[in-house]
């Protein structure tokens, strides 16, 4: 297993390198000079040049890339064009809020969706199932920004139950309670999709699993429904569900862009928008790389989870 992990991590290196090159090319394809954003509108060419030099934009592209790469290997991901703060700590400071937001979302979603999916599958064809699948369809079809605006209007503006945005109260108490209070609306918006999606997925997976012969065997053994579900159904259903979780997890990085924007959540999604608007190239490079690393790690994690759940899978 260790050998396998090492191998996987090794093969990730060229992939990351390719991604960094692709991202570098993509970012530099953009028209317009980011320097313009960081000088006064009446800047002289000399001033422009000085800023370009300070931002490292005065070199040719290959030199810029190599410089970025050598620094990145030492853990220096460059500086923010606007504040001149190192990118890495900024990026790191945004991981917490995004993980809190997406982690809560996924946790809440799975806790709700998995039982719902199972119920829906077990009650296939009944009004409960119709209600749940219908709800799931609505959930995946409703645009999250529309839902977000609606919730802000109802719960923040009209009822004033929750704040319209942000994560913390400043100068007041910055307790977990306050963070949770701020989390409610964005999590509600995000989990609508995840719950709906996961419910549908769990339902169809459970229906598939329940169509499997070993469930028939278990039934023929005279086991109770409860035992069949917990000992035979869920564990086998977990295998495909892990795949879906594997595709959900990378969204930790940038999946909540729209929601973070609407709720002014100080996470990676909003940082991405900011970096795009501000043409913060090193920041964009760092975000891209971070998401690539997360994806590779999640894929590895998912593959290892398979091995935990499915005895047929062994990595040597």
């Amino acid at each position, binding site marked *: 297993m260790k050998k396998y992990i090492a191998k996987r991590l090794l093969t990730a290196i060229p992939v990351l390198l390719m991604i960094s090159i692709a991202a570098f090319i993509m970012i530099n394809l953009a028209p*317009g000079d980011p320097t313009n*954003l960081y000088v006064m509108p009446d*800047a002289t060419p000399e001033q422009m040049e000085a800023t370009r030099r300070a931002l490292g934009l005065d070199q040719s592209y290959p030199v810029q890339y190599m410089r970025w790469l050598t620094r990145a290997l030492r853990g220096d991901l460059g500086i923010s064009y606007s504040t001149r703060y190192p990118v890495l700590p900024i990026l790191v400071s945004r991981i917490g809020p995004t993980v809190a*937001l997406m*982690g809560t979302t996924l*946790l809440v979603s799975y806790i709700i969706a998995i039982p719902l999916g199972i119920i829906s599958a077990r009650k296939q064809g009944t009004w409960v199932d119709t209600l749940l699948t219908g709800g799931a369809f609505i959930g995946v079809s409703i645009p999250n920004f529309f839902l977000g605006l609606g919730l802000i209007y109802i719960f923040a503006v009209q009822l004033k139950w929750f704040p319209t*945005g942000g994560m*913390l109260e400043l100068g007041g108490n910055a307790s977990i309670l306050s963070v949770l209070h701020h989390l409610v609306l964005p999590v509600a918006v995000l989990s609508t999709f995840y719950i709906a999606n996961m419910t549908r997925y769990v339902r169809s997976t459970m229906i598939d699993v329940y169509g499997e012969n070993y469930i028939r065997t278990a039934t023929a053994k005279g086991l109770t429904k409860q035992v069949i579900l917990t000992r035979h159904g869920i564990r086998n259903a977990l295998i495909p569900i892990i795949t879906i979780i594997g595709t959900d997890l990378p969204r930790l990085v940038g999946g909540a862009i729209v929601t973070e924007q609407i709720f002014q959540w100080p996470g990676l999604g909003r940082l991405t928008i900011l970096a795009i608007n501000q043409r913060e190239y090193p920041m964009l490079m760092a975000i891209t790389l971070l998401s690539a690393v997360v994806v590779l790690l999640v894929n590895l994690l998912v593959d290892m989870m398979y091995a935990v759940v499915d005895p047929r899978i062994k990595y040597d």
Partner: protein
Amino acid sequence: MSTLKKMLRYSVVLFASSVLLAACGGEDVPDLEDAAVEGSETESDDLPDADADDGDTLMVGLTNAPDSFNPFYRPGVAGTWVQRFFYDSLLVMPTADSFEPALGSLETEDNQVFTVNVHPDAFWTDGEPVTADDVAFTLNTIAHPDAETTLGPNVAMIEGTNDSGIREEGLDELPGVEVVDEKTLTITTKSPVDLAYISEFLGFGVLIAPKHVFEGIEVADISNSDAATKPSVFSGAYQFVEYDNDNYVHMVSNPDYYRGAPEIENVYVRVMNGTALITEFQAGNLHMTAGGGIGMVPVQDIGLLEDIEGLVVEEFPSFNGQYMIINNDTYDNAKVRQAFAHAFNRQLIVDNLLNGRGEVLASTYTSATPYKDPDLEPLEYNPDLAKQLLEEAGFDFDTPIEFVVPTGNAVREQAGNLIEQWLVEIGLTVNQSNYDFPTWLAMAQDLDYDLGLMGYGHTVDPNIATYVQTGGSSNNMAISDPVIDDLLAQGMAGTSYDNRFPIYQDLQQHMQDEMPIVPLYSDSQFGVKVDNLNGGIKEYWAGSLHDLHEWSFE
């Protein structure tokens, strides 16, 4: 199942710690004593209430993130404004046409040699005195050829600099800056200048940097250095504590401030969008906005702020204006350019898009500046006349006009749509396209457009050479008019308001006749604050912080 349970338990822990992490990110935000005070007051309520504050924390709303805390390099308005909390300039500007000494005074006999007397009691927060050397160092650094600075124009009048404010080749130091003694220096300009001009640009516009902090750093490296990005030694009323990127700047008072210890202990300048600004005011979490285009809700939403009880909303004219810039190469006939101006119902923009909170511009000068010609009326809205002028000029109505509207300013985008429609109404063919600002600026610099919208912020000083002078650094309109160039030169040579005003009056008239750029509108500035705050935004916005140390809660 046991593995499953383990996994589940682990994920719960992971989740809990991530929430903790998020919370912890801010837990060190308030000072301990501050938290204690708040804690006792907000036991029953999670939301701190600005009104119930006992006056030691000021919450300021800002809609643009401050970009720079570097006194030599201040590209953004928000960064500059925040820096004034902790770096002082020689002079402050309570109003647009008055100056008061702060870190120093500026005096002249002949409008060419200016004497600076540094405040005798001024100390840096690390105990070092503020000296004439600091001032000289600051000016020399700005003029240094390697410096990354935005302040070139602020020192470009000093002897030994070129037009961009960069030290002439072959010089090691500016000959125009001479330290006389510890607290005195003289500044010599290339030619006699208006005291108001040098007071605004150099006296008010340059923040004095601590020499002993920056002198060890290569000039070219200053802007990326910690000394510049995380300042630690201050001359102002407040001391910078930290900047949480895109979230807030925290500052605490400087108890040894030479003009008197500030009344309010803590200042948080919080970054948020316009919607949050309103809801935070509603929730009582803000005391004031930064105003001035960096801390303001859209003019159309001002009504929502006015509806909040306990809030004072004041309206002031602004120095910022919106213009339609014209590619003067393409449209080299003044009649055509005037036709554009006649085609636009600019009053409608002000009445409907700005809800009347603004003015139609007759020239590049807004009513905030004393140099605005009060007698010059905007060209009237007259589409028929516009059409007629175009026909007289033999204009080709079928060639599509490339009209560019930059994104990012809602009212300007809306105005752009109306303008497109007005151009169509006089029979023109228009291709409107919207671009983000850097793209649009690059296009404008390449003259890759026919018509476009642009906003300019002006100084009190009436010099607009960078925009309209032949070859001006922001002249993206290919304006090349000897009359304008001549008037601008005359204007700069004037040394007092009285002898400069008529020159700029002529300039305004000439520009209306030639119409190289179409002035559109200027939206008002607003000062928004809670009614128990003694202080806040002034009519001359840029000078609002001049009495910062005296601000208090009633």
